[in-house]
Protein backbone atom coordinates (compact mmCIF):
# COMPACT_ATOMS: atom_id res chain seq x y z
CA UNK A 1 0.00 0.00 0.00
CA UNK A 2 2.71 2.41 1.04
CA UNK A 3 4.69 1.44 -2.03
CA UNK A 4 1.75 2.10 -4.30
CA UNK A 5 1.07 5.45 -2.66
CA UNK A 6 4.67 6.60 -2.99
CA UNK A 7 4.81 5.56 -6.63
CA UNK A 8 1.59 7.47 -7.21
CA UNK A 9 3.19 10.51 -5.55
CA UNK A 10 6.23 10.08 -7.76
CA UNK A 11 4.02 9.99 -10.83
CA UNK A 12 2.33 13.20 -9.71
CA UNK A 13 5.70 14.86 -9.21
CA UNK A 14 6.84 13.67 -12.63
CA UNK A 15 3.72 15.13 -14.23
CA UNK A 16 4.24 18.42 -12.42
CA UNK A 17 7.81 18.52 -13.67
CA UNK A 18 6.78 18.08 -17.26
CA UNK A 19 3.88 20.53 -17.20
CA UNK A 20 4.20 24.08 -18.39
CA UNK A 21 6.16 26.12 -15.89
CA UNK A 22 3.54 27.65 -13.63
CA UNK A 23 3.48 31.30 -12.65
CA UNK A 24 5.12 30.55 -9.33
CA UNK A 25 7.95 28.52 -10.80
CA UNK A 26 9.18 30.64 -13.62
CA UNK A 27 12.90 31.05 -13.69
CA UNK A 28 15.28 33.12 -15.69
CA UNK A 29 18.13 31.42 -17.50
CA UNK A 30 20.27 33.09 -14.83
CA UNK A 31 19.03 30.59 -12.25
CA UNK A 32 20.25 27.64 -14.31
CA UNK A 33 23.82 28.91 -14.64
CA UNK A 34 26.81 28.01 -12.51
CA UNK A 35 27.80 30.32 -9.64
CA UNK A 36 30.84 31.63 -11.55
CA UNK A 37 28.79 32.73 -14.55
CA UNK A 38 26.19 34.27 -12.25
CA UNK A 39 28.93 36.22 -10.49
CA UNK A 40 30.20 37.42 -13.85
CA UNK A 41 26.80 38.81 -14.79
CA UNK A 42 26.16 40.33 -11.37
CA UNK A 43 29.38 42.38 -11.27
CA UNK A 44 29.24 45.28 -13.73
CA UNK A 45 33.03 45.47 -13.90
CA UNK A 46 33.28 41.76 -14.77
CA UNK A 47 30.28 41.52 -17.10
CA UNK A 48 31.63 41.73 -20.68
CA UNK A 49 28.19 42.88 -21.85
CA UNK A 50 28.87 46.18 -20.10
CA UNK A 51 31.54 46.95 -22.71
CA UNK A 52 28.77 46.91 -25.30
CA UNK A 53 26.47 49.00 -23.08
CA UNK A 54 29.20 51.65 -22.81
CA UNK A 55 29.68 51.58 -26.59
CA UNK A 56 25.92 52.07 -26.90
CA UNK A 57 26.05 55.10 -24.62
CA UNK A 58 28.61 56.69 -26.96
CA UNK A 59 26.46 55.93 -30.00
CA UNK A 60 23.40 57.35 -28.24
CA UNK A 61 25.16 60.70 -27.93
CA UNK A 62 26.82 60.72 -31.37
CA UNK A 63 25.04 62.56 -34.21
CA UNK A 64 24.47 60.40 -37.30
CA UNK A 65 22.97 60.55 -40.78
CA UNK A 66 21.86 63.37 -43.04
CA UNK A 67 19.82 64.89 -40.21
CA UNK A 68 23.02 65.04 -38.14
CA UNK A 69 21.00 64.22 -35.07
CA UNK A 70 21.87 61.94 -32.17
CA UNK A 71 19.40 59.76 -30.26
CA UNK A 72 19.95 62.08 -27.29
CA UNK A 73 18.91 65.17 -29.32
CA UNK A 74 15.33 63.87 -29.36
CA UNK A 75 15.17 61.45 -26.44
CA UNK A 76 17.45 63.26 -24.00
CA UNK A 77 18.92 61.35 -21.10
CA UNK A 78 18.29 57.65 -21.71
CA UNK A 79 18.29 56.96 -17.97
CA UNK A 80 14.90 58.70 -17.74
CA UNK A 81 13.48 58.61 -21.28
CA UNK A 82 14.30 54.94 -21.95
CA UNK A 83 13.55 53.60 -18.48
CA UNK A 84 10.96 50.84 -18.82
CA UNK A 85 10.79 51.06 -22.62
CA UNK A 86 12.45 47.70 -23.28
CA UNK A 87 10.05 45.94 -20.90
CA UNK A 88 7.24 46.57 -23.44
CA UNK A 89 8.96 45.22 -26.59
CA UNK A 90 8.13 43.78 -29.07
CA UNK A 91 5.32 46.34 -29.26
CA UNK A 92 2.63 47.16 -31.81
CA UNK A 93 3.64 49.57 -34.56
CA UNK A 94 0.76 51.54 -36.07
CA UNK A 95 2.54 52.08 -39.35
CA UNK A 96 3.51 48.46 -39.90
CA UNK A 97 0.21 47.16 -38.43
CA UNK A 98 2.35 44.52 -36.76
CA UNK A 99 4.62 44.11 -33.74
CA UNK A 100 8.22 45.24 -34.07
CA UNK A 101 11.23 44.43 -31.92
CA UNK A 102 13.44 46.92 -30.11
CA UNK A 103 16.11 46.44 -32.80
CA UNK A 104 13.55 47.20 -35.49
CA UNK A 105 12.44 50.33 -33.63
CA UNK A 106 16.05 51.52 -33.42
CA UNK A 107 16.52 50.88 -37.15
CA UNK A 108 13.23 52.66 -37.91
CA UNK A 109 14.28 55.69 -35.86
CA UNK A 110 17.64 55.67 -37.58
CA UNK A 111 16.08 55.63 -41.04
CA UNK A 112 13.21 58.10 -40.44
CA UNK A 113 14.65 60.58 -37.97
CA UNK A 114 18.41 60.40 -38.44
CA UNK A 115 18.24 59.58 -42.16
CA UNK A 116 21.26 57.40 -41.62
CA UNK A 117 22.25 54.21 -43.47
CA UNK A 118 20.82 51.13 -41.72
CA UNK A 119 22.93 49.14 -39.28
CA UNK A 120 23.39 45.48 -40.23
CA UNK A 121 21.62 42.82 -38.15
CA UNK A 122 23.94 41.57 -35.38
CA UNK A 123 26.40 44.37 -36.06
CA UNK A 124 28.22 45.49 -32.90
CA UNK A 125 26.69 48.98 -33.19
CA UNK A 126 23.09 47.75 -33.36
CA UNK A 127 23.68 45.35 -30.47
CA UNK A 128 25.34 48.13 -28.47
CA UNK A 129 22.42 50.55 -28.95
CA UNK A 130 19.93 47.83 -28.16
CA UNK A 131 21.91 46.79 -25.06
CA UNK A 132 22.18 50.41 -23.90
CA UNK A 133 18.44 51.03 -24.25
CA UNK A 134 17.46 47.71 -22.65
CA UNK A 135 19.97 48.26 -19.84
CA UNK A 136 17.98 51.32 -18.72
CA UNK A 137 15.16 48.92 -17.75
CA UNK A 138 17.32 46.46 -15.83
CA UNK A 139 15.44 45.16 -12.80
CA UNK A 140 12.01 46.23 -14.08
CA UNK A 141 9.42 43.49 -14.75
CA UNK A 142 8.64 42.50 -18.35
CA UNK A 143 5.28 43.94 -19.46
CA UNK A 144 5.19 42.89 -23.12
CA UNK A 145 1.84 41.91 -24.61
CA UNK A 146 -0.51 44.20 -22.66
CA UNK A 147 -1.73 45.84 -25.89
CA UNK A 148 -4.84 43.92 -27.12
CA UNK A 149 -3.83 44.57 -30.75
CA UNK A 150 -0.97 42.13 -30.15
CA UNK A 151 -3.20 39.16 -29.31
CA UNK A 152 -3.32 37.56 -32.80
CA UNK A 153 0.46 37.88 -33.10
CA UNK A 154 1.02 36.33 -29.67
CA UNK A 155 -1.17 33.42 -30.76
CA UNK A 156 0.88 33.11 -33.93
CA UNK A 157 4.06 33.07 -31.81
CA UNK A 158 2.60 30.35 -29.59
CA UNK A 159 1.83 28.37 -32.71
CA UNK A 160 5.45 28.63 -33.84
CA UNK A 161 6.64 27.71 -30.34
CA UNK A 162 4.61 24.52 -30.25
CA UNK A 163 5.04 23.53 -33.90
CA UNK A 164 7.37 20.62 -34.52
CA UNK A 165 10.04 21.31 -37.09
CA UNK A 166 13.37 20.22 -38.49
CA UNK A 167 14.83 16.80 -39.15
CA UNK A 168 14.76 16.06 -35.43
CA UNK A 169 11.03 16.95 -35.37
CA UNK A 170 11.14 18.97 -32.16
CA UNK A 171 9.13 22.00 -31.16
CA UNK A 172 10.52 24.68 -28.85
CA UNK A 173 7.98 23.53 -26.24
CA UNK A 174 9.29 19.94 -26.34
CA UNK A 175 12.44 21.13 -24.58
CA UNK A 176 11.62 24.42 -22.89
CA UNK A 177 8.16 23.54 -21.51
CA UNK A 178 8.30 19.77 -21.17
CA UNK A 179 11.91 19.16 -20.22
CA UNK A 180 13.37 22.29 -18.65
CA UNK A 181 15.82 21.70 -15.84
CA UNK A 182 17.08 18.51 -17.49
CA UNK A 183 20.28 18.30 -19.44
CA UNK A 184 20.94 18.41 -23.15
CA UNK A 185 24.48 17.18 -23.32
CA UNK A 186 26.37 19.22 -20.77
CA UNK A 187 23.95 22.13 -20.74
CA UNK A 188 20.89 22.59 -18.56
CA UNK A 189 17.71 23.33 -20.55
CA UNK A 190 16.28 26.65 -19.33
CA UNK A 191 12.64 27.76 -19.53
CA UNK A 192 13.34 30.10 -22.45
CA UNK A 193 12.52 33.43 -20.85
CA UNK A 194 14.48 35.96 -22.92
CA UNK A 195 15.02 38.47 -20.11
CA UNK A 196 18.70 39.32 -20.63
CA UNK A 197 18.91 40.19 -24.33
CA UNK A 198 21.06 41.22 -26.02
CA UNK A 199 23.29 38.81 -24.10
CA UNK A 200 27.01 38.23 -23.91
CA UNK A 201 27.24 34.53 -24.65
CA UNK A 202 30.51 32.90 -23.60
CA UNK A 203 30.26 30.38 -26.44
CA UNK A 204 30.09 33.25 -28.96
CA UNK A 205 32.68 35.32 -27.09
CA UNK A 206 30.50 38.22 -28.19
CA UNK A 207 27.17 39.96 -27.80
CA UNK A 208 24.22 38.55 -29.68
CA UNK A 209 20.49 39.11 -30.09
CA UNK A 210 17.61 36.81 -29.26
CA UNK A 211 17.23 36.15 -33.00
CA UNK A 212 20.78 34.84 -33.17
CA UNK A 213 19.99 32.57 -30.22
CA UNK A 214 16.75 31.35 -31.82
CA UNK A 215 18.61 30.60 -35.04
CA UNK A 216 21.08 28.53 -32.97
CA UNK A 217 18.23 26.47 -31.54
CA UNK A 218 16.68 25.95 -34.96
CA UNK A 219 19.96 24.81 -36.46
CA UNK A 220 20.18 22.46 -33.43
CA UNK A 221 16.96 20.68 -34.40
CA UNK A 222 18.08 20.72 -38.06
CA UNK A 223 15.38 23.16 -39.09
CA UNK A 224 15.84 26.04 -41.46
CA UNK A 225 16.37 29.15 -39.32
CA UNK A 226 14.16 32.19 -39.94
CA UNK A 227 15.91 35.23 -41.38
CA UNK A 228 16.97 38.18 -39.26
CA UNK A 229 14.08 40.63 -38.96
CA UNK A 230 11.53 38.13 -40.28
CA UNK A 231 7.94 38.27 -38.95
CA UNK A 232 8.35 34.75 -37.52
CA UNK A 233 11.20 35.93 -35.29
CA UNK A 234 9.19 38.92 -34.12
CA UNK A 235 6.17 36.74 -33.31
CA UNK A 236 8.29 34.20 -31.46
CA UNK A 237 10.04 36.97 -29.54
CA UNK A 238 6.66 38.54 -28.74
CA UNK A 239 5.28 35.24 -27.47
CA UNK A 240 8.38 34.51 -25.38
CA UNK A 241 8.42 37.98 -23.82
CA UNK A 242 4.69 37.77 -23.06
CA UNK A 243 5.34 34.39 -21.48
CA UNK A 244 8.12 35.96 -19.37
CA UNK A 245 5.85 38.72 -18.08
CA UNK A 246 6.71 39.72 -14.52
CA UNK A 247 10.30 38.49 -14.59
CA UNK A 248 12.89 41.26 -14.21
CA UNK A 249 14.92 42.39 -17.21
CA UNK A 250 18.64 41.62 -16.83
CA UNK A 251 20.31 43.22 -19.85
CA UNK A 252 23.16 42.69 -20.39
CA UNK A 253 22.81 39.03 -19.44
CA UNK A 254 25.74 36.62 -19.50
CA UNK A 255 24.95 33.12 -20.66
CA UNK A 256 27.18 30.08 -21.19
Amino acid at each position, binding site marked *: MTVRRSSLAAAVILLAGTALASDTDRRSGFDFMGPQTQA*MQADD*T*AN*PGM*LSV*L*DGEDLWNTPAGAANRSCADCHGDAATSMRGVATRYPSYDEKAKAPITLDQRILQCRADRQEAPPLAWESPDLLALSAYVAHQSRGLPVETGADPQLTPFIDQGRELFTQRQGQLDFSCADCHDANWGKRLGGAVIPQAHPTGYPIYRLEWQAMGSLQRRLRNCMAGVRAEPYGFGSPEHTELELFLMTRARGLPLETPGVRP
Partner: protein
Amino acid sequence: MARTLINVPATAKRGEVVEIKALISHPMETGFRTGSDGALIPRDIIHRFACTYNGEEVFSADLFPAITANPFITFTTVAEESGEIALSWTDDQGNTQTETAKITVGQDPVE
Protein backbone atom coordinates in the same frame (compact mmCIF):
# COMPACT_ATOMS: atom_id res chain seq x y z
CA MET B 1 41.56 52.81 -27.90
CA ALA B 2 39.88 49.67 -26.77
CA ARG B 3 36.98 49.94 -24.39
CA THR B 4 38.01 48.85 -20.87
CA LEU B 5 36.54 48.48 -17.43
CA ILE B 6 39.13 48.93 -14.67
CA ASN B 7 38.17 48.27 -11.07
CA VAL B 8 40.59 49.44 -8.38
CA PRO B 9 39.30 50.26 -4.88
CA ALA B 10 39.45 54.04 -4.35
CA THR B 11 40.56 53.71 -0.74
CA ALA B 12 42.33 51.04 1.28
CA LYS B 13 43.98 50.56 4.65
CA ARG B 14 47.76 50.36 4.87
CA GLY B 15 48.85 46.77 4.34
CA GLU B 16 45.45 45.69 3.03
CA VAL B 17 45.29 43.17 0.20
CA VAL B 18 43.34 44.82 -2.61
CA GLU B 19 41.87 43.21 -5.70
CA ILE B 20 42.45 44.82 -9.09
CA LYS B 21 40.21 43.84 -12.01
CA ALA B 22 40.55 44.68 -15.68
CA LEU B 23 38.11 43.81 -18.46
CA ILE B 24 39.54 44.68 -21.86
CA SER B 25 37.63 44.75 -25.14
CA HIS B 26 39.81 42.86 -27.62
CA PRO B 27 39.06 40.27 -30.35
CA MET B 28 41.98 38.00 -29.26
CA GLU B 29 42.11 36.48 -32.74
CA THR B 30 44.00 33.21 -32.38
CA GLY B 31 45.65 33.06 -35.78
CA PHE B 32 44.28 29.56 -36.34
CA ARG B 33 40.93 30.54 -37.83
CA THR B 34 40.20 31.00 -41.50
CA GLY B 35 38.01 33.70 -42.99
CA SER B 36 35.27 33.22 -45.59
CA ASP B 37 37.94 33.31 -48.32
CA GLY B 38 39.77 30.35 -46.77
CA ALA B 39 42.82 32.40 -45.82
CA LEU B 40 44.14 32.45 -42.27
CA ILE B 41 43.06 35.44 -40.21
CA PRO B 42 46.30 36.86 -38.80
CA ARG B 43 46.86 36.43 -35.10
CA ASP B 44 45.97 39.47 -33.04
CA ILE B 45 46.09 38.93 -29.31
CA ILE B 46 47.18 40.92 -26.30
CA HIS B 47 50.44 39.14 -25.55
CA ARG B 48 51.71 41.17 -22.61
CA PHE B 49 49.92 42.68 -19.65
CA ALA B 50 51.63 44.46 -16.75
CA CYS B 51 50.62 46.50 -13.72
CA THR B 52 52.77 49.10 -11.96
CA TYR B 53 52.08 50.63 -8.57
CA ASN B 54 53.80 54.01 -8.26
CA GLY B 55 56.19 52.93 -10.98
CA GLU B 56 57.05 49.56 -9.49
CA GLU B 57 55.86 46.46 -11.32
CA VAL B 58 53.59 44.39 -9.08
CA PHE B 59 52.04 42.02 -11.62
CA SER B 60 52.68 40.93 -15.17
CA ALA B 61 51.43 38.21 -17.46
CA ASP B 62 52.16 36.72 -20.86
CA LEU B 63 48.97 35.87 -22.75
CA PHE B 64 48.55 33.13 -25.35
CA PRO B 65 46.09 32.32 -28.15
CA ALA B 66 43.86 30.18 -25.91
CA ILE B 67 42.77 33.24 -23.90
CA THR B 68 39.19 34.32 -24.60
CA ALA B 69 38.10 37.44 -26.46
CA ASN B 70 37.55 40.40 -24.12
CA PRO B 71 39.89 39.01 -21.44
CA PHE B 72 39.14 39.60 -17.77
CA ILE B 73 42.28 39.78 -15.65
CA THR B 74 42.13 39.95 -11.88
CA PHE B 75 44.92 39.88 -9.30
CA THR B 76 45.77 41.22 -5.86
CA THR B 77 48.44 43.48 -4.45
CA VAL B 78 49.23 44.96 -1.03
CA ALA B 79 48.24 48.61 -0.57
CA GLU B 80 51.32 50.31 0.86
CA GLU B 81 50.92 53.97 0.00
CA SER B 82 48.62 56.32 -1.90
CA GLY B 83 49.39 56.73 -5.54
CA GLU B 84 48.73 55.55 -9.03
CA ILE B 85 48.08 52.08 -10.35
CA ALA B 86 48.84 51.80 -14.06
CA LEU B 87 47.73 48.88 -16.19
CA SER B 88 49.24 48.52 -19.64
CA TRP B 89 49.06 45.92 -22.35
CA THR B 90 50.41 45.35 -25.83
CA ASP B 91 48.83 43.43 -28.70
CA ASP B 92 50.21 41.84 -31.86
CA GLN B 93 49.52 44.94 -33.92
CA GLY B 94 51.93 46.78 -31.66
CA ASN B 95 49.25 48.86 -29.94
CA THR B 96 50.03 49.63 -26.33
CA GLN B 97 47.32 51.02 -24.11
CA THR B 98 47.72 52.26 -20.55
CA GLU B 99 44.90 52.89 -18.09
CA THR B 100 45.50 54.41 -14.67
CA ALA B 101 43.57 54.55 -11.42
CA LYS B 102 44.23 56.40 -8.16
CA ILE B 103 44.27 54.66 -4.82
CA THR B 104 44.23 56.46 -1.47
CA VAL B 105 45.75 54.51 1.40
CA GLY B 106 44.74 55.54 4.92
CA GLN B 107 47.26 55.98 7.73
CA ASP B 108 45.71 53.35 9.97
CA PRO B 109 47.28 49.94 9.37
CA VAL B 110 44.98 47.01 8.67
CA GLU B 111 44.28 45.00 11.84
